[in-house]
């Protein structure tokens, strides 16, 4: 007995103190759970439970008939919804649906947008970082505008500008065309309705319609300023001595850019590019408000399709299955980019 009690910090009151120290030892543990409790109670009810409910829903034919609170439960279809989506049988209910095309378009949409954002963003940041350039602050103030305007407004305004008869784009093209004697009617371009692919050899499997290029252009307008801000922050932390030393050694401006600037801003640009990629992959606002996924569902992305399955088609079970698929696609995308990031991170100066 004596030896055992000797191992513990003891006091005359013995056992009572032992309980107290346990209570005191766990004060911080209990506080931690207490602070989490409200958030997890609420999320359990409205965030996590619906996610599990969604997985169950995805194995049923949940539809309008099951909506009312006293209506019968939906029938189980097991993995039928997933099969219909992946092998294209959903096209019987949703015209022009094709999973392969949808996924490829979504990926191509993402990987053609983000490089433009990063390259243009970095080039403009470098331009604004040149010593002795006039009006830098004014330019910086102007270039931030696309970021601070809500995407909802950006998308609706661009849609308006692409209008066939009176949109700014067609009117501006027509007034330029007039200088060269081209008839005004040539510039009644139907940006979002034209079905033929303007560049048929680019991703020939998809036949990207004009709407894709119109939205690409608008999204470049929207996307580069964020990259400029991130790049500017990184550029300003590069020591000028590096460039001076390089130019004394006879390095050309291009060499300096490739050997000093690019490697030193890469750690900042890669997370920004990943953030931009996920945002662009899920850019509901643009696709939904501008092309609405058309023409013929050719510019539909995953999230707009999920929304259409709920709001337009009212196939709730199918929509749930589709959302589960979105989850796994995003998971794969995130894990992939994380791997690439880690692989490219090792270059310590």
């Amino acid at each position, binding site marked *: 007995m004596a030896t055992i009690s000797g191992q513990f910090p003891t006091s005359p009151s013995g056992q009572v103190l032992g309980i107290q120290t346990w209570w005191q030892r766990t004060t911080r*543990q209990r506080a931690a759970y207490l602070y989490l409790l409200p958030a997890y109670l609420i999320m359990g009810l409205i965030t996590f439970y*619906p996610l599990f409910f969604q997985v169950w*829903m995805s194995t049923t034919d949940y539809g309008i008939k099951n909506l009312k609170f006293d209506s019968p439960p939906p029938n189980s279809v097991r993995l039928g919804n997933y099969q219909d989506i992946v092998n294209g049988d959903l096209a019987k209910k949703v015209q022009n649906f094709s999973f392969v095309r949808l996924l490829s378009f979504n990926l191509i949409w993402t990987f053609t947008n983000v490089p433009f954002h990063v390259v243009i963003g970095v080039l403009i940041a470098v331009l604004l970082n040149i010593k002795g*350039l006039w009006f830098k602050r004014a330019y910086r103030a102007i270039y931030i505008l696309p970021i601070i305007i809500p995407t*909802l407004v950006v998308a609706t305004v661009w849609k308006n*500008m692409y209008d066939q008869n009176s949109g700014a784009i067609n009117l501006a093209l027509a007034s330029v065309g007039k200088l060269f004697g081209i008839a005004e009617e040539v510039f009644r371009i139907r940006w979002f309705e034209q079905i033929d692919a303007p560049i048929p050899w680019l991703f020939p499997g998809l036949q990207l319609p004009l709407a894709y290029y119109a939205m690409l252009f608008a999204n470049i307008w929207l996307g580069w300023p964020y990259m400029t801000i991130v790049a500017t922050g990184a550029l300003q932390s590069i020591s000028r001595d590096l460039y001076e030393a390089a130019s004394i050694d006879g390095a050309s401006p291009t060499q300096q850019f490739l050997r000093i600037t690019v490697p030193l801003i890469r750690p900042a640009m890669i997370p920004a590019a990943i953030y931009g990629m996920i945002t662009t992959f899920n850019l509901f606002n643009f696709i939904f408000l501008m092309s609405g996924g058309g023409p013929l569902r050719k510019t539909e992305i995953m999230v707009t399709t999920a929304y259409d*399955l709920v709001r337009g088609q009212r196939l709730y079970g199918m929509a749930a299955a589709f959302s589960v698929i979105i989850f796994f696609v*995003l998971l794969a995308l995130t894990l992939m980019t994380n791997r690439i990031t880690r692989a490219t991170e090792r270059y310590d100066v």
Partner: protein
Amino acid sequence: MSEEKRLPLGKQLLFQAICLLVAFSVIMPLLWVVSLSLDPRDLSRPPDFRLIPPGASLDAYKRVLDQPTANPVTFRELAFNSLKLAGGVSAFSVFIGVLAAYSFSRFDFKGRRALMLGIITVLMLPGIATIAPLFVMLNRIQFDLGDAVFNLRNSLWGVGVAMTAGALPFAIWNLKGYLDTIPRELEEAARIDGASPNQLFFRIILPLSTPALAVTAFLGFLGGWTEYPLSWLFLTNPKDFTLAMSLWNMTGQFSGDTPWSAFSAMALMVAFPVAVVYLLLQKYIVSGLTIGSVK
């Protein structure tokens, strides 16, 4: 400044030309909307491309303030609905979120990793991908109020619940990112002096994280202010409609007869207040976004 080698004039002019071109491309869409909104001719569509309309006036703004859409709702009612929705969701999620963020940032406890993983998983999913279960679940909650039936799905409350489902995890994660950057020395000193976790939270963490709270609240507000897909799916009564919904309504497939000047005035009025606040908080937001989303 003085000893730096100066930019040769030729290069300076070349760079200025590029910068101006970029600036013009950025401003062009905005000039176009502003000019449309000032057009007094009450045209449904502009006949030609010009940036300053003849005889500019604020008529379009007046009309939008009266009745922006075909529905018998005033701009004020729409704005009030948007305010309630955005303000409620943002205040609630920041209030609950900062508690959880404190726990994640400052305590080590069993299950911490698993609970954080739950949040990251939810954050990875776009909000649109969870609307199917929320829609059918909220639709089942219905009360008979005698002369009327209250359906949770068909109310601003329901939209608020659905939005909170996504806003709360975001608030927790974003605030955790900020709290992680607050140095721990102050707390350690206070802890040695015998301060409890509650005292540390209220006396040290909360006062130091005011900018972070403001930014997170603003981002939540922005999300609510510009939210329309959920509202369009859930709400059917025009009295519940929000500004963002109405703006889409003015450009959507039913809007062949919406005067463009009214649409432009509306777009500017929806964008202006949040754009100004964004500008003021911009420095914190840009760094916060990368912390919150990538770390």
